[in-house]
């Protein structure tokens, strides 16, 4: 059996047109626009951003955290496939690993621009400060990205080009290199359960630490929160798995019909729904606790000021509760809904919700800043407006993510030769 990949088409001028070349062209424009901003930032520094000493983390940090969250399905399905050994998810698990790799490489890329000294990005690996959460996150991300590369390599090598391309015999060096990669892939495949354990450990550590990065800072009022690490882990699992379901419908249901059974896709939806509901349960408790702490003058002032200048509370109730709870329920009941179009569309909402959580978390403590005034505690409202360079670099990394995913969706078989025979 050979995998037939059906291209995504659109009806234009009374005929079905393959949208892939147009989509790639559109993303290439994004890359070019991104490259202009990236050059400006690397040449002139962060003075080109809208960041200030009061709001030193902005759009890029949100993209960074979100990209990592969107790769959250990788460790969930790494565990399901390789540790729990639910092999029916093996093919969907490959897509999850790909999303993990794309998420973490995107995060690494955007972080490079966000550093004042980009060429020193490797310093935390060498100059250790184990008390710092950011050090721990850097180490975990570097190690986990290595694990993801090890896991994604065999998936890429499944492509026909690495097995029967005429150049492999014509150019011996190429053939030998590919053989080496196959040998490494063979070893890595044997190590898969071990890699899954390492991946799970590292993921839980740094996903939680991303929340703790904010929540250990007692001077920032709203941020100082014990449940943030758990919320970050659960929202990455929920948002990431929801995104995986949405993309699985495109990659498997539409482009590779028959490769993955509908029941498996329904189960992915149910897993996503369950985690999202659990995450909302935690979020509601967090809301209750924050309100309890609003007896604290400073936290109360922060919440009031944020509500004055932004839809802070509405974004919580609509963006983080409604957008996750309703889709969560629908996804959990996927086998009853039995409509992939509806399920796929609602699955986008929890992914958006995970991004919103990170956006809201990052800015709440920075925009509404508690002052140092010893007699009349106040909250100062800081402002931040991203510049074109920030949007440009954001476009660059998002275009990279979409482009790499589009090529993978279009060309990778997501099934090995042996699996095809089975």
């Amino acid at each position: 059996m050979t995998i037939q990949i059906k291209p995504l088409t659109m009806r234009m001028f009374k005929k079905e047109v393959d949208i892939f070349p147009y989509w790639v062209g559109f993303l290439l424009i994004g890359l070019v626009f991104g490259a202009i901003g990236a050059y400006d930032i690397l040449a002139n520094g962060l003075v080109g951003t809208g960041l200030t000493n009061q709001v030193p983390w902005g759009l890029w940090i949100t993209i960074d955290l979100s990209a990592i969250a969107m790769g959250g399905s990788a460790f969930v399905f790494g565990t399901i496939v390789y540790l729990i050994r639910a092999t029916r998810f093996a093919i969907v698990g490959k897509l999850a690993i790909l999303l993990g790799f794309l998420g973490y490489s995107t995060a690494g890329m955007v972080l490079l621009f966000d550093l004042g000294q980009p060429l020193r990005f490797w310093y935390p690996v060498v100059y250790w400060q184990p008390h710092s959460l950011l050090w721990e996150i850097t180490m975990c991300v570097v190690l986990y990205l290595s694990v993801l590369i090890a896991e994604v390599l065999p998936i890429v090598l499944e492509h026909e080009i690495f097995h029967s391309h005429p150049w492999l015999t014509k150019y011996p060096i190429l053939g030998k290199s590919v053989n080496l990669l196959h040998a490494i892939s063979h070893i890595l495949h044997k190590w898969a359960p071990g890699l899954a354990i390492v991946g799970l450990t590292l993921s839980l550590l740094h996903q939680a630490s991303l929340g703790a990065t904010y929540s250990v800072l007692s001077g920032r009022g709203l941020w100082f929160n014990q449940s943030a690490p758990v919320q970050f882990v659960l929202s990455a699992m929920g948002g990431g798995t929801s995104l995986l379901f949405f993309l699985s419908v495109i990659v498997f249901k539409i482009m590779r019909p028959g490769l993955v059974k509908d029941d498996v896709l329904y189960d992915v939806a149910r897993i996503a729904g369950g985690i999202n509901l659990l995450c909302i349960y935690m979020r509601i408790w967090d809301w209750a606790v924050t309100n309890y702490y609003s007896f604290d003058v400073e936290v109360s002032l922060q919440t009031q000021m944020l509500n004055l200048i932004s839809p802070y509370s509405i974004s919580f109730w609509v963006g983080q509760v409604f957008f996750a709870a309703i889709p969560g329920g629908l996804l959990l009941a996927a086998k009853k809904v039995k409509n992939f179009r509806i399920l796929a569309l609602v699955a986008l909402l929890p992914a958006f919700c995970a991004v919103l959580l990170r956006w809201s978390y990052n800015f709440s403590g920075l925009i509404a800043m508690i002052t140092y005034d010893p007699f009349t505690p106040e909250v100062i409202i800081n402002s931040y407006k991203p510049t074109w360079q920030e949007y440009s670099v954001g476009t660059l990394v998002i275009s990279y993510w979409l482009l790499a995913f589009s090529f993978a969706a279009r060309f990778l078989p997501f099934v090995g030769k042996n699996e095809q025979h089975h």
Partner: protein
Amino acid sequence: MTDNPAEFSRRDTLKVGGAILGALTVTSLASVGMQNAHASHGVEGEHKWGMAIDINKCIGCNYCTYACQAVNNLADDMAYSVVTTETTKNGEEYFLSRPCMHCDDAPCVKVCPVEATYIRPDGIVTMDYDLCIGCRYCEVACPYDVRRFNWKESAGNTTCVPDFGIPEVDPRPRGVMEKCTFCEHRIDAGLERGLVPGVDESATPACVVACPTGARAFGDLKDPNSPVSIMINSSPNVIRLREELSTLPKVYYLPPKSTVEKHEELGL
């Protein structure tokens, strides 16, 4: 042809494995060698430098800010020490001059991923600009809004030169975090020459020397006769900013008299 992994022999596998292991060993050794560049961290030294600011004497002239800019080679739009107008509970306005608090339990030190911000044995919270990666986590962590990022290349001297002093340190590279160091270069050089920081001007932070009303005192907190200890002991109501955070700042404030009187009226 390429589908047979056996073509890549066991010997080749061992070679690749050996190379990876070797690279890992070298990296680990390098990291062990390079980490703890500031190993003195945590060891308490002979001195413990601190500052006291008498809010009642501060007239908001900003001379402290200007002198700091001149001596520390800062651009006009960058200040380590800032003066703001604040109010007491009964609405009385006063000036709050705010340098780095040099906290004993500094949040900025704990969060730095590479130990570029560290505490010297004499209590000064300082920076290793060669290590800083510019992540700005210290700036986010600081509850006093006194950490500063170097957004652009140095464009020559501030307009405060030469009226308020001349640059005594090199400008820092673009993209690193900066901070008030209690003019550590003056303290270190002064001690070598047998001078007493806080007493001898050339061994004392520029902001203290420039203050026209004597609102600032500096010196060794371990020495009861140092100017800083004398000023702190002169008032029973000395405060530190955001003490509830337990950061243990080494900058003390003598509060506005009206707040002290109110305090005394209440019998506190």
